């Protein structure tokens, strides 16, 4: 099958499912209270977009996700670099971090609410904590597994410590760091859904909880779809970054 045909073929499955779903709803096989028809979900989306509340909720949720990712990601990245290049930092930090890693971060939710209240900072803290570990672990692991033969080559060819880091260690760790980022993005949305559903006055999760109060199944369904789309969008963006930064690797090259 050619590449173009395959690109179209992957849409067949979801389309058939949508048509069956719409058909079953239209003929009354699935009550709207249980599962609204795709068109009803679409209409809810349109209605909330026109009223301005959906774009606002998406913006609020995305901003929370992004701020948490930037904070947790940069701390994780920095500590991963540090423990990766320094044996001392590794001995001091890594055992403690590995221990804390075993606590599911969502278990801290009640504690976080006591610390921060139901404020913005509580949700951002949880997201940051969630994305911290995959990025920390994969940065550390990536640096530790850089080919020692390449590092020796750099030394023999007179590279400075800075050049060794910038030209060999960091590029060598990049594929692993991206793996960490993709894990982190999954955890980021998951954390946000839980945090927004339990304690928020805006955002997609809040929208879903409000809709539940009024049994607006279409809006609940819409919020699920929006979360899925946001997650897919973040994943695709990472893929593009990978294709650009890891173009040298046959495993990541475009079309490979």
């Amino acid at each position, binding site marked *: 099958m050619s590449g173009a045909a395959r690109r179209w073929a992957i849409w067949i499955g979801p389309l058939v499912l949508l048509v069956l779903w719409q058909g079953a709803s239209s003929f009354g096989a699935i009550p709207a209270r249980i599962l609204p028809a795709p068109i009803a979900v679409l209409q809810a989306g349109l209605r909330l977009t026109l009223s301005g509340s959906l774009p606002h909720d998406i913006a609020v949720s995305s901003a929370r996700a992004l701020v948490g990712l930037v904070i947790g990601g940069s701390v994780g990245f920095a500590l991963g670099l540090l423990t990766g290049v320094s044996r001392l930092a590794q001995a001091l930090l890594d055992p403690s971090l590995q221990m804390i890693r075993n606590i599911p971060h969502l278990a801290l939710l009640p504690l976080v609410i006591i610390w921060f209240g139901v404020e913005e900072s509580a949700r951002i803290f949880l997201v940051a904590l969630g994305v911290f570990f995959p990025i920390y672990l994969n940065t550390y692991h990536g640096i530790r597994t850089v080919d020692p*033969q*390449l590092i*020796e*080559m*750099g030394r*023999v*060819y*007179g*590279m400075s410590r800075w050049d060794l880091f910038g*030209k*060999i260690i960091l*590029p*060598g760790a*990049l594929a692993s760091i991206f793996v960490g980022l993709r894990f982190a993005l999954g955890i980021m949305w998951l954390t946000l859904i839980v945090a927004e559903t339990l304690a928020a006055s805006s955002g997609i999760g809040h929208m879903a909880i409000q809709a539940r109060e009024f049994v607006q199944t279409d809006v609940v369904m819409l919020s699920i779809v929006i979360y899925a789309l946001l997650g897919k969008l973040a994943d695709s963006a990472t893929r593009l970054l990978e294709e650009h930064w*890891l*173009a*040298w*690797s*046959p495993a990541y090259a475009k079309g490979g």
Partner: protein
Amino acid sequence: MHTPVTAAQGMAIGAFDLSKAFGSRKVLRGISLEIAAGDFVSIVGKSGCGKSTLLRLLIGLEPASSGRIEGVERSAARLVFQEPRLLPWANVARNVAVGLGADARTPEMARSVTAALRDVGLEARGGDWPAMLSGGQRQRVALARALVGHPRLLALDEPLGALDALTRIEMQRLLEGVWRTQGFTAVLVTHDVAEAIALSNRLLVIDHGIIALDLPIELPRPRRRGDPAFAALEGLVLDHLLSS
């Protein structure tokens, strides 16, 4: 081939009573050796005889346990490893530029990179990723990386060991060619006796940490493997290696 620059004159080096021990294991026991400027010397020996260690000591990669080395200027010495050790995330030209100690930012540096790639027959591949090259081509890029800084001493640590037989002969010709035009001192560690005889002016056999045989090779170049004199020398060295 581009014209040799004046800086690429061979380096004359000497080692005096050189010893190296790893823990209680003595790898080299008092080796003394002088290598003339522009000479091509091969070091052969069984696995673990200390030949690679001798090479690493000579170019100052590892400190000797005792003894001294004279004449080696680290900045004008380059090493070619058994593996290409190219940076997979840098294209061929940028890999060669590593040998200049910097990115090829100036036009002069870019010209040096192009010239080194031309010397190894890969001038058209500067923009390719190493993953797109064959094993032999990758080792040529590694050679270009070593040559681009116009070394006065080229140390080669079994650089052709991982290549198939035909590619190896091609690479030997290439190596002989650049050595003859550029005039650096070459020290080649190899386990392939025929390769040592084909390339070098002088062949050293290392056995149990000492120089067991120091043999001048005066066959006319280019050398042919089928040649009776070549075969006789090869037999002599192999007998020596196998009897020890």
